[in-house]
């Protein structure tokens, strides 16, 4: 099992190392026995293999430097340049060509290099053409706590040096010796940042696409300067792969940006077209309506001086009322068209409810409608637009009041459902209820059961709720009343911040735009 997992050459290497060590052990034991025969006789008895065996063990365990020297000897003269490490790296270079993900590629390079070459640290830096800098995309052997955001720019001494020396491997110590004290100091800082003993520049043609920073070797790694040629070739392959991955990443980013800006632009122009249309309609319709309604009002207000005939007064009142109804439609359209860009802030829904009841509750009290409320005391603030939320509450309130008519109850509940992270707004009324057939139509635009209503209130409400990613539903039993439930999801940020804020400050202010 052990052998199968290894490269055959590694096994051969182990056997050879063992044999040489055994041979050395045997020779040493034999020489010892010649020089000091009494030693052997006194301690080990007469069997000739016992001392040889023990000496080999001593060599293996205690004389690591000898083992290293033996290994080096083997690598150098038995395996020549085709060492396992280099063979693996050549394979790696092939593999890299098929990988176009910059991050995966970087991880693969540093981990393989680190393990195969027994390096303490390896880091790969890729150039970011937009910023003109080189950033560490992956690192092996760096302490987890250390910042990986090491970044060199074109002005860094190391990068300048590379531009001067070209694709040669830079080795820290000999290089520093060639420089002045100040120059060496600056350059050493770059090497230290990268925890590097060597730096291999990654060039494609004249273009520096990245750097490989290799830390000092573990002492038992076998390398000599003859390997530099191999590294230059390897670095060439890695550089091409890196460049490809960078190009792919650049294309992806550009594509995403393009898609984003397209979506944004589309949204913007779409909304502004609708908004322009709504504003245009409002302008063109509201002016004539203002004239019609205004003239009727002028006549009505003159009635103190010149009494009007009752049917004329009635007609004038109808004119004033109907012009207001027509204007309501365009106002709702306008609210709907511009709501998407309504600025959002953290709003206390309880305060919105207070405002709604203050505005609309007067008529309700007049009509003997009892209003009760249950508000969760820990209700978080909601990130939304006050106007929009008021529109929601007001429409639900008016809807309930209209369903009741002149006498009944409206119960409003605000609560947080923590498992779904939503705020639930519940309006229940004791009104006439909704026929089952109508129940699914109540949110349709221009749907109404009343002859004097427009039928946009619940539609606009639903549109606003959907804009917040929320849901609205209606439940009803004819004759018993209806329940409207709005669920507004708390965004993670808003609920957390809101929690903190409401803890710090119990009295919450909201901007009042009236």
């Amino acid at each position, binding site marked *: 099992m052990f052998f199968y997992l290894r490269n055959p050459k590694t096994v051969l290497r182990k056997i050879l190392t063992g044999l040489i060590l055994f041979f050395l052990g045997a020779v040493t034991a034999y020489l010892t026995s010649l020089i000091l025969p009494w030693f052997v006789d006194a301690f080990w008895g007469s069997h000739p293999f016992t001392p040889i065996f023990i000496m080999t063990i001593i060599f293996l365990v205690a004389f690591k430097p000898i083992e290293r020297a033996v290994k080096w000897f083997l690598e150098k003269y038995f395996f020549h340049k085709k060492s396992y490490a280099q063979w693996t790296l050549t394979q790696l270079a092939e593999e890299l060509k098929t990988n176009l993900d910059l991050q995966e590629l970087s991880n693969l390079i540093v981990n393989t290099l680190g393990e195969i070459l027994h390096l303490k640290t390896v880091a790969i830096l890729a150039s970011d053409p937009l910023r003109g800098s080189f950033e560490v995309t992956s690192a092996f052997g760096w302490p987890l706590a250390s910042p990986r955001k090491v970044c060199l720019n074109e002005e860094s001494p190391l990068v300048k040096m590379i531009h001067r020396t070209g694709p040669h491997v830079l080795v820290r110590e000999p290089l520093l010796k060639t420089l002045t004290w100040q120059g060496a100091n600056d350059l050493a800082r770059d090497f230290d940042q990268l925890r590097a003993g060597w730096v291999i520049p990654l060039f494609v043609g004249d273009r520096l696409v990245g750097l490989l920073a290799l830390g000092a070797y573990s002492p038992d790694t076998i390398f000599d300067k003859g390997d530099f040629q191999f590294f230059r070739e390897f670095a060439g392959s890695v550089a091409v792969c890196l460049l490809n991955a960078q190009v792919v990443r650049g294309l992806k980013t550009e594509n995403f940006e393009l898609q984003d800006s397209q979506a944004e632009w589309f949204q913007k122009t779409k909304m502004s077209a609708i908004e322009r249309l709504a504003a245009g309609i*409002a302008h063109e319709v509201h002016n004539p309506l*203002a*004239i019609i*309604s205004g003239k009727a009002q002028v006549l009505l207000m003159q009635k103190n001086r010149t009494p009007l005939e009752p049917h004329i007064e009635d007609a004038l009142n109808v004119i004033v009322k109907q012009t207001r109804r027509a204007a309501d439609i365009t106002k709702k359209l306008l609210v709907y068209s511009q709501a998407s860009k309504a600025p959002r802030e953290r709003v206390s829904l309880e305060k919105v409810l207070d405002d709604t009841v203050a505005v609309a509750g007067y008529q309700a009290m007049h009509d003997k409608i009892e209003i009760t409320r249950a508000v969760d005391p820990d209700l978080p603030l909601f990130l939304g637009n006050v*106007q929009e939320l008021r529109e929601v509450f007001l429409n639900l309130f008016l809807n309930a009041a209209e369903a009741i008519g002149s006498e009944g109850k409206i119960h409003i509940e605000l609560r947080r459902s923590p498992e779904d992270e939503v705020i639930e707004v519940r309006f229940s009324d004791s009104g006439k209820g909704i026929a089952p057939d109508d129940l699914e139509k109540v949110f349709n635009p221009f749907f109404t059961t009343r002859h004097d209503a427009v039928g946009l209130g619940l539609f606009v409400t639903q549109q606003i709720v959907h804009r917040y990613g929320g849901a609205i539903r209606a439940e009803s039993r004819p004759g018993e009343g209806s329940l409207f439930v709005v669920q507004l999801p708390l965004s993670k940020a808003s609920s957390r911040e809101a929690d903190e804020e409401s803890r710090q400050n119990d009295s919450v202010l909201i901007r009042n735009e009236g």
Partner: protein
Amino acid sequence: MKKKLLLVDDEVEICEFLRSFFEDRDYNVATAHSGVQALDQVEKFGPNVVLLDIQMPEMDGLTALRKIKEKYPKTKVIMVTAVETQDRIEDAMRAGADNYITKPLSLEYLEKDVQEKIESLAGA
């Protein structure tokens, strides 16, 4: 105090019915149909209160509002407009408008508001 009111709207009809309405209530009324005319009238006529439309030829109401408030900060300006958008309301309020009313108008409310503005001037 003489109640002087300037009505500014490019819709002549609107100016006319408002004029008859306010003249009935003992206001001294002048009219203008563009921002430029409005500035001119503010100068000559010296109104206490201006009812100012926004969407007008030559110079729009917001620009006129800024210029009026710059020269005559005491003059009360009520924006009377067909289009109510949050942006416009905020723009107008920032430029110093004293109120923002949308068409169609409730004359009752409008009169009350104009009356209040004049009283606040008299009190000051």
